């Protein structure tokens, strides 16, 4: 992140592990807010529990509400409905938003509450020590699936789209410009918007899946990200192993 964005930050350093993608997402977030010239006084970040919940709280200089595990979207719903002038951005992880908080996520999308929900998806529970998440790829190793994950992961974009999200986008943190643009589109969407940022976790996912090199983990993740055009050429089995990236907007 350039020094020009430092006025958005409260603390000189973050608690993220070396190689974590969440710092890039934090940079994209504050850049999106900066480019939209959002009024910091009317900006509220809400997060749950987990590594991603630390992206806004305590790092970002604005109002922050660090809630309980899974509940960020429900807290945000109350704040937004009570004061519609607030721009409310939820930032949390895949385990927080899609497992324990899955019900709140789909209901907020159904209600079309004007929230931007940003999911930092590292495909594992990072903070608690590398357990399986509802987004962990089939067969991937984790602390609770030492023989490989037996269950299919959620496609979060399909999930929120099915629940009625007006705007949904998925980008890896290795593509910060489209990610930043997607965040800007989401924040300016007059309704429920969802952005999934694929953000690798070397400490837990990489280590447990024998990818000891951070750059190798990033290359591996980049390899699984395919555009919709490219995905069309893949077989269903191949597509199941990929993450389709881009914007997903109703025509």
């Amino acid at each position, binding site marked *: 992140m350039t020094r020009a964005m430092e006025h958005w930050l*409260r603390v000189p350093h973050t608690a993220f592990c070396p190689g974590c993608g969440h710092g890039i997402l934090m940079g994209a977030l504050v850049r999106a807010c900066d480019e939209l010239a959002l009024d*910091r*006084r*009317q900006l*509220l970040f*809400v997060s749950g529990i987990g590594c991603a919940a630390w992206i806004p*709280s*305590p790092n970002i*200089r*604005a*109002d*922050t*509400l*660090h*809630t*309980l595990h899974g*509940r960020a979207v*429900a*807290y*945000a*719903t*109350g*704040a*937004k*409905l*009570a*004061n519609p*002038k*607030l721009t409310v951005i939820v930032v949390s992880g895949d385990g927080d938003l899609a497992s324990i908080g899955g*019900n*709140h996520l789909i*209901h907020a999308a159904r*209600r079309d509450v004007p929230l931007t929900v940003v999911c930092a998806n590292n495909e594992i529970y990072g903070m608690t020590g590398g357990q399986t998440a509802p987004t962990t790829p089939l067969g991937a190793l984790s602390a609770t699936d030492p023989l490989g994950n037996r269950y299919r992961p959620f496609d979060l974009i399909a999930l929120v789209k099915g629940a009625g999200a007006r705007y949904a986008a998925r980008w890896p943190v290795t593509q910060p410009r489209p990610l930043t643009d997607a965040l800007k589109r989401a924040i300016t969407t007059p309704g429920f918007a969802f952005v999934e940022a694929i953000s690798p976790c070397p400490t837990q996912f990489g280590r447990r899946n024998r990818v000891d090199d951070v750059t190798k983990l990033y290359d591996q993740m980049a390899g699984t990200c395919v555009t919709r055009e490219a995905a069309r050429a893949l077989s269903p089995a191949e597509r199941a192993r990929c993450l389709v990236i881009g914007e997903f907007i109703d025509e």
Partner: protein
Amino acid sequence: MPKDDSAVKGAQGAGPRPEPQVLMGNYAAAEGALAAGCGFYAGYPITPSSEIMEVLAERLPRQGGVFVQMEDEIASFAAVIGASWAGAKAMTATAGPGLSLMLEGIGYASFTETPLVLVDVQRAGPATGQATRVGSGDVLQVRYGAHGDTCPIALSPWSVQEMYDQVIRAFNLAERYRTPVFVLADEGVGHLRETVVLHRDFELVARVRGNDQPPFGHPDPDGVPPMPIFGDGANLMVTGSTHDAWGFRKVDDAEPHDLLVRRINRKILDHAEDICEVDGRFLDDAEVALVAYGFSGRSALAAVKALRRAGVKVGLLRLKTLWPFPARQVAELGKAVRRLVVPEMNLGQVGGVVRQHVRCDVELLGQVNGEVIEPEAIERKVREVLP
């Protein structure tokens, strides 16, 4: 001897006193919320409390407030907390099974010092129990249900009038002490229809805001800090993790945790004299006294009157505040009488607490059959234990 402290202090006679009308207790609770300036309600349907949300669904938006039916009680409580920090006087209502789901939020609201009101219309538990029947089995859950040490406030109405008055008082206490406040009603009071005056003889406590002082710390070990809201420009850091006075997380430090946990308890306990209200009847010469609350208080008073007619020197101390426990009032009563009887619709949840504060005998009369305790049952119990 304890005296009846009036339910709502102060008077701001706004126009003529309204005519009495007959209302259901749950309706009166909703009226109390509207009168107190409630601006946000989030809830989930549950018997026997649903009438509260139904009234507010219609009336709150007309008053400029927000009503939202959430996907469950966990989300309802979460939304209420979010709305409170966004500046609204916020409330929800539920019954036992919903209360169980709200516990995590109760701990969060206590620790983040979030003012809000929860009306719990208790039904016969445990589990789903008997949804349409009466009970008061949530008394200890609201006190101790959240993990860690918290100190919520709980009021206990015995009439439709008190459903109105106590909901208003609950909003005032919530704002004054920055804490969740329960109105611990029961199905008996919630579904009772009787006369109520929707008066305006009360003052409303306004939230103390301000960005120049720390929002989560106070120089006094039992102080209540000011509470800026989202949009005030305070760059708030609200967190359920241990935090310092400005909200920075302190997840490994001993001192900030100790300081914060003690203060959120002491700010309530040190002000028990302001918070605790009791209603004493026929106590001046009583040898035996009943300690009762909620709907059981009505049966207790009927039993006292019947026994008095028969010459038995018995009185009643009705607890209008259950938490913090009116320890001084109960202890004084324990010194003045020879025996206490505690009738309640559980197996002794308050009776056990009474025993902690007195040396005289305390007889429990617990009833858990989903029905109100009849005055005759209380009368029989008193006659059995007469010294």
